[in-house]
């Protein structure tokens, strides 16, 4: 069953996806603008439920890759996302039935919509992170042990790359990241193709619906002048980790990632305490007065305390009033295999994963 994705849902999807981006995945504004322009030109996108895919349907998994900061300068163009899908079809010699997002977090939630609007293929109501993560092996497909190749990558200068094979997810990440960094830390990619069966077994389902509903809760709360942060906590069964004011941000760019930490001084109930929020593209670990209190794979979201809007790791700045909120992770990410792929040790922290929801 195909369902048209109505134009009025674009903003809700973008708002919710930005929160699920946990600081990364890129601000969806430009993708939203691109999608609106495509809709204004008459394009329409249909959504297909994962359970409606046939087992042997081929599904393209797309994402923009690179540093969000770069994407704010090198504005994305839907044609490149569509081209990445076509390049993969050319390579495979088979057409895709549908297109799905690698991650539902941030701008990449809209990436399949941009390609779909140009290619007339439906978008699958699923992704393989349930949030945003910086590396290729940090997906439910990788956790499920599925194949990691081939991969197609398209850049604006007419460079097109196919990674035909990779020895492991780590190698796929290493090779594709090196190629991406070489072309300026931003590129459109089509990841390893999936069958309908694989999407049904290992995809994280209905995340477009989830992101759209989360975004609508925030927009509605704002309109009613309710506390949008409270609305997020209530709707998504989240937990407030900290509330305060940003007093320092330290960023470095290494190997194509944006790394660093944000220091937040507590207010209200957290007055007197300090929270350090470390990130690698996305928020990874929250350390309160030297003690880790929340960490990946739980979703750590930094929200503007007033608007409830998400604040990205590249946009956080001194003086912002913020709420650090944890949302429950998709189940697969909290399994032993999931924690090995996306837990604190995957980000270089020598600590055991402990969920705030246990």
């Amino acid at each position, binding site marked *: 069953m195909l369902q048209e994705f109505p134009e009025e849902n674009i903003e809700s999807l973008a708002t919710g996806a930005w929160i699920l981006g946990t600081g990364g995945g890129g601000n969806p504004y*430009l993708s939203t*603008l*691109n999608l609106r*322009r495509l809709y204004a030109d008459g394009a329409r996108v249909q959504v297909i439920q994962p359970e409606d895919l046939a087992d042997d349907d081929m599904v393209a998994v797309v994402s923009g890759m690179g*540093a969000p*900061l*770069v994407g*704010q*300068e*090198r*504005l*994305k*163009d*839907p*044609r490149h996302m569509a081209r990445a899908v076509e390049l993969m079809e050319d390579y495979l010699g088979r057409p895709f039935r549908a297109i799905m997002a690698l991650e539902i977090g941030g701008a990449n939630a809209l990436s399949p919509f941009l390609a779909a609007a140009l290619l007339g293929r439906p978008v699958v109501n699923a992704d393989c992170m349930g949030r945003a993560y910086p590396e290729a092996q940090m997906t439910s497909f990788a956790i499920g042990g599925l194949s990691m190749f081939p991969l197609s990558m398209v850049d*604006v*200068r*007419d460079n097109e790359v196919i990674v035909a094979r990779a020895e492991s997810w780590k190698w796929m990440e290493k090779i594709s990241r090196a190629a991406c960094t070489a072309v*300026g*830390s931003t590129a459109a990619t089509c990841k390893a193709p999936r069958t309908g069966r694989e999407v049904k077994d290992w995809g994280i389902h209905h995340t477009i619906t989830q992101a759209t509903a989360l975004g609508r809760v925030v927009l509605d709360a704002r309109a009613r*002048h*309710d506390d949008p942060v409270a609305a997020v906590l209530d709707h998504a069964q989240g937990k407030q980790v900290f509330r305060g004011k940003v007093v320092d941000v*330290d*960023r*470095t*760019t*290494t190997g194509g990632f944006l790394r660093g930490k944000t220091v937040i001084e507590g207010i209200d109930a957290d007055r007197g305490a300090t929270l350090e929020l470390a990130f690698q593209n996305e928020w990874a670990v929250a350390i309160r007065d030297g003690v880790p209190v929340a960490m990946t794979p739980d979703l750590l979201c930094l929200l*503007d305390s*007033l608007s409830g809007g998400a604040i990205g790791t590249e*946009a956080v*700045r*001194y*003086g*912002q009033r913020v709420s650090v909120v944890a949302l429950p992770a998709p189940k697969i990410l909290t399994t032993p295999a999931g924690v090995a792929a996306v837990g604190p040790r995957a980000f270089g922290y020598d600590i055991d994963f402990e969920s705030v929801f246990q």
Partner: protein
Amino acid sequence: MKRIGIDVGGTNTDAVLIDGDSIIASIKVPTTQDVMSGVKAALAHVAAHINDTPRPLDAVMIGTTHFTNAVVERSRLERVAAIRVALPTGASLPPMCDWPEDLYRAVDPMIFMVHGGHEYDGSPLVPMREDEVRDAALKIRDAGVTSVAISATFSPLTTECEDRAAEIVRSVIPEARITLSNSLGRIGLLERENVALLNAALQSLGKTTVQAFKTALDDIGLQAPFFLTQNDGTVALADVAAANPVFSFASGPTNSMRGAAFLTGLSDAMVVDVGGTTSDIGCLVGGFPREANNIVHIGGVRTLFRMPDLLPVALGGGTIVDPETGAIGPKSVGYRILQDARVFGGATLTTSDIAVAAGLIEMGDPALVADLDPDFVQTALARIRAMVAENFDQMKTSAEDVPLIAVGGGAFLIPDEVPGASAVIRVENAGVANALGAAMAQVSGEVDQVFSDMTREQALAEAEAAARRAAIDAGADEASLQVLEVEDIPIAYLPGGARRVRVRVIGDISFG
């Protein structure tokens, strides 16, 4: 410290003379059609009191809402050309693709996208196509457009493409007034480009405005240095300010909020400043306007630079009321209120006429609005109240009631009871809060450069020290300096851990 502060709104021109914390003289006059005769009248009035106290006059601080009004009203804007050096990136999102349609039409832009720009590491994206820039410049020249905004990818890190493109444009159009996006905004191409384009659209207005102020001061014989107030509550020398009108965008409301804090003694409250053309609603925190965290919309355009968090509303004492439908605004009679408003014998129905007819305020001749249908007056008044209530509510940050300070010449339009306000506070001299805030404005010092071969802490410390020196050189009192803004961007793949650091400090003017 003795200063004259003057605020030139679309409708009223206010001036004050202060000596330390004392208001020596103040006046409110209608802004005249030529603007400057009103300015001169106001200046002459307060200048006559300069010798009431022994200290000499230190400075004249001028705040003007001209530039914002031009954008909000979509008038007095210059036709602009946009040159973006970014292809092959960004083709699907051309310059001004996210502007409101009416503003787009008012600026009637010529848009050019050319190949070039830089990567985040300072290397070229693709070689800049100078022939494309030259072609664009020729077309711009042939169209008679002289205001040009130039943007390029990652220009805050390296200005090379914007600088070179400007050289080429200047070689073709020597009289071109060029705004480079890197001089105004931050990382974020569309937003930085938007600020540059708004600035470009205001070039003529900036130049004529400052020249007119200069003449007015000369005519009165005021010899003191003369500044324009800026968005952050600081001042810039008038000639410098003229080239960057966007830095004066929010100076009016900033001044009035600072003035409101001074007059009421409240440092935390909401403030609504009602001028003749627009109202601005903001939030005072610790005596200063709360700053917007990120994106600020100006006239519906996304921008990214340091601005107070304000909600501008097209509602003022001169706002035109449609006599048929009762629709309010957005056009205003502005400075022509004394000729055009019905109570002053004119033919245009304004919110002031409605207020007089309803008995909210006495001005002009009430007999001239006696013919208005009382039902029509009540309906229009209800619309005005609804506009105030809705916008106030939008700016509030909590469900709790907070005090609302009503200042500005059109403060009578604010009802005594506003839903969500614990009280509506009116104070003496509220009408000249703007001018008072201008007179109190501070100076700043800024540094924006790349530091290499040092730790982040060292780079920040060096930058802060340099910004402090710049502020002291600009006339700041060293003891009053405080850091207003710190931003640093690491530049990858350059040797020595290079990082661009921008620091801005602010302080009182030293009259030692």
